[in-house]
């Protein structure tokens, strides 16, 4: 079941690489958050403890509801236009993502021979980290950079569930809170930038001086 959800996660990554609309990116992130919450709920079916339900619930709340809601609010408040404005051609971008994804799968296959990992979730998480980095590098809009960062964080979470040893719940919760604060701060920063500059492109920030 975890593999199935990881495959869905990979598909959502491909869609994130393909889409040229900011709103679709938010939808993808929301879907990824829900998938992650479900993946983290799965172990509870074998062994239920009340303490461990906090993490999936927090994931669903923060990644599935709160962050997408907040990003949508920023989009409407600041009137951010829908195209994502890539710096390279979308075609090249998807080719890059596919190539790196294949490389990650091959690497995970090699890694699995020496360590105890679940290949599919591991490779999906790894691919998400790489896709996130690529989104940050090859998109102009600042808000899309935040989304690339969030995709990366989602990847790290999936990564965590693929390795054999488990992190304490409190650390994972701390990570979640961290992400939320980052997104929150980014929103405030964007708001501040909007009072000084008209656009939200990283290219324009070069003009800023102290």
């Amino acid at each position, binding site marked *: 079941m975890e593999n*199935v959800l990881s495959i869905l996660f*990979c*598909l959502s990554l491909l869609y994130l690489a393909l889409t040229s609309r900011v709103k679709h990116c938010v939808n993808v992130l929301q879907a990824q958050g829900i998938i992650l919450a479900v993946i983290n709920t799965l172990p509870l079916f074998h062994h239920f403890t009340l303490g461990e339900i906090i993490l999936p619930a927090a994931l669903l709340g923060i990644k599935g509801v709160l962050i997408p809601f907040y990003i949508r609010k920023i989009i409407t408040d600041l009137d951010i236009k829908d195209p994502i404005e890539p710096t390279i051609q*979308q075609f090249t971008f*998807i080719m890059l993502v596919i190539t790196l994804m294949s490389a990650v*799968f091959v690497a995970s*296959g090699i890694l699995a021979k020496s360590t105890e990992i679940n*290949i599919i979730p591991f490779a999906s998480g790894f691919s998400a980290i790489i896709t996130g980095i690529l989104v940050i590098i090859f998109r102009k809009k600042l808000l899309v950079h935040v989304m690339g960062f969030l995709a990366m964080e989602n990847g790290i979470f999936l990564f965590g569930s693929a390795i054999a040893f488990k992190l304490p719940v409190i650390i994972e919760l701390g990570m979640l809170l961290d992400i939320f604060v980052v997104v929150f701060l980014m929103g405030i920063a964007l708001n501040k930038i909007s009072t000084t500059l008209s656009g939200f492109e990283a290219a324009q920030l070069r003009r800023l001086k102290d």
Partner: protein
Amino acid sequence: MALMNIFEGLASLFFVLLFAPLFAGLVNKQKAMMTGRVGAPVWQPYYDLFKLFRKETIRAKSASFISGLSPAINFAAVIIAASMLPVCNAHPLISFKGDIILFAYILGTARFFQILAAMDIGSSFEGMGASREASFAIFVEPIFFFTLGSIAFITGFTSISDIYRSIAMDRMSYTVFIVVCSISFFILAVTECSRMPVDDPNTHLELTMIHEVMILDNSGQDLFFYQYSGNIKLLIYIVLETAFYYPLGAGLTAVGVTIFALNILFVSFVLAGVETVTSRFKLKDMPHYLLFAAAIGILNLLIFTFNK
């Protein structure tokens, strides 16, 4: 037994030839109803084909023998492809190891001759359509091979009917392969048959057309062959799409045929729905759309390779 197999094969081929225009009519009717129109009757494609068949064929003065040859080759190629189909899991007329390659390239031959005929006439419009068709073909073939190829890998067979016969949705991860493959196969069908997000079959504006522009100068029986083979091609892809969800063991029984018919109806509904809610993509956006489908196939292959 061999005689029975031949009979089954002939019956499936006959089914495809007979019902191909009906399927196109069904999709158009549902599309019309979804957009609040009454629409042409379901039988309209039959009337159109009949009308075209009776009309006189007029060819351009600049056209060479290729223009006369191409419609017939197109039609023959599509019929050969149709005779490899596993309709209702019946034994197809043509089936041997590795026939997925023949299937892909016999349709490739049809496309090649259509492109050649379009350029043969010497109109710049048709040349443009031919160039578009050729450039899409480059992206379409990887989709076919990655998708059906990955299933061939998983099942260990290389013949279309064997592949579809051995699809068993018993394991959860297997079901995901099938669902994912059927998504990319749907995109393939839409592209190959020049349906909505890729090409609009209803427009006759030269700048938005891909498939339609190539047959702009054809008339009469030539156009009949092109239209009819277009309809058959659509049904071929739809049968391949529905065969993913055909339960094993249902076979050629009354239940099996009912399930098959329901499957086809459902896909026609989905196709009409997709055509209603989507608009045609920009030409420059098409490669990523097709690459996405190919990426799904690659992902399937990767997951299968490393999930053993």
